[in-house]
């Protein structure tokens, strides 16, 4: 039962914040400063998420095969590789490094 309470609370809360973002009045968003913020916030969030998913293990920072995979993705991006190739490069290199015991 407790689990259902937690699920319900999480579902409501997460839905509410998703909706809140969408419901901000359009007039407010016309203001240049607000536009600038709204454009830069996803950049900050995505950058932080990318870094965390690469270097985080719970609360600890680690340097493991994922970092090699990300480096491969960076190289692929610099070479202007198509999107799927970028992701594939990261996956293959990560698996390869792990297979070699990294």
């Amino acid at each position, binding site marked *: 039962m*407790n*689990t259902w*309470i*937690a*699920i319900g*609370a*999480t*579902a409501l*809360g*997460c*839905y509410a*914040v*998703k*909706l*809140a*973002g*969408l*419901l*901000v009045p*359009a007039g407010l*968003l016309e203001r240049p400063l607000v*536009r*600038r*913020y*709204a*454009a*830069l*916030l*996803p*950049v*900050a*969030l*995505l*950058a*932080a*998420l*990318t*870094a*965390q*998913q*690469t270097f*985080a293990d719970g*609360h*600890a*920072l680690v340097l493991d095969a*994922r970092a090699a*995979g*990300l480096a491969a*993705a*960076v190289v692929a*991006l610099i070479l202007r590789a198509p999107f799927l190739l*970028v*992701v594939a*490069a*990261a*996956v293959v290199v*990560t*698996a390869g490094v*792990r*297979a070699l015991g990294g």
Partner: protein
Amino acid sequence: MWQTCALSLLVFTGASQFALVGALAAGGNPLTAAAGAFFLGVRNAFYGLRLSQSLALPRAVRPFAAQWVIDETAAVSLAQTGRRAARIGFGVTGLTLYVLWNLTTLLGALGAEAIGDTDAWGLDAAGPAVFLALLAPMLKTTAERAVAGLAVVLGLGLLPVLPAGVPVLMAALAAPVVLYLEGRRRAGRTAGRVDTGEEER
């Protein structure tokens, strides 16, 4: 099993789901666990802020679209130019992810042990690689690069000391910090600290 599936259907924001399950499995109080999961979901509000501009959805549609406002849909939609492409990106990403996420949740709940160790296949590197590929085109100006660099530093630096989900929110502070420094620079010469070169991490 029903609880796992309900979580995917109703919450549909991966990080929050993992946090909730993790906290409950560790024997945490349900409301504390829900609060942690909630913090991880707060960033979706920021995505919504940006998406409501680029998608310009009718008011009546918004409550339905809201459930799909997540990292992946935001990243794909914002990478498009033009409203039509953004809407298509949002719709296609939202639908595919929602269907696949819930199907795979069901499969996982039915018996995941059969699959073995997904990490061995390097699949955990796909997530950050996708985010990186979507982020790269957004890093057009120095301001955006500075925001990304500072966000990486904040996100990683605060990770060991703050509860899960909070470091990413703190990393969002990179945006106001950089805008403030940019404003000062424009007002006159200033010795603002601007991080660059970290965005590829």
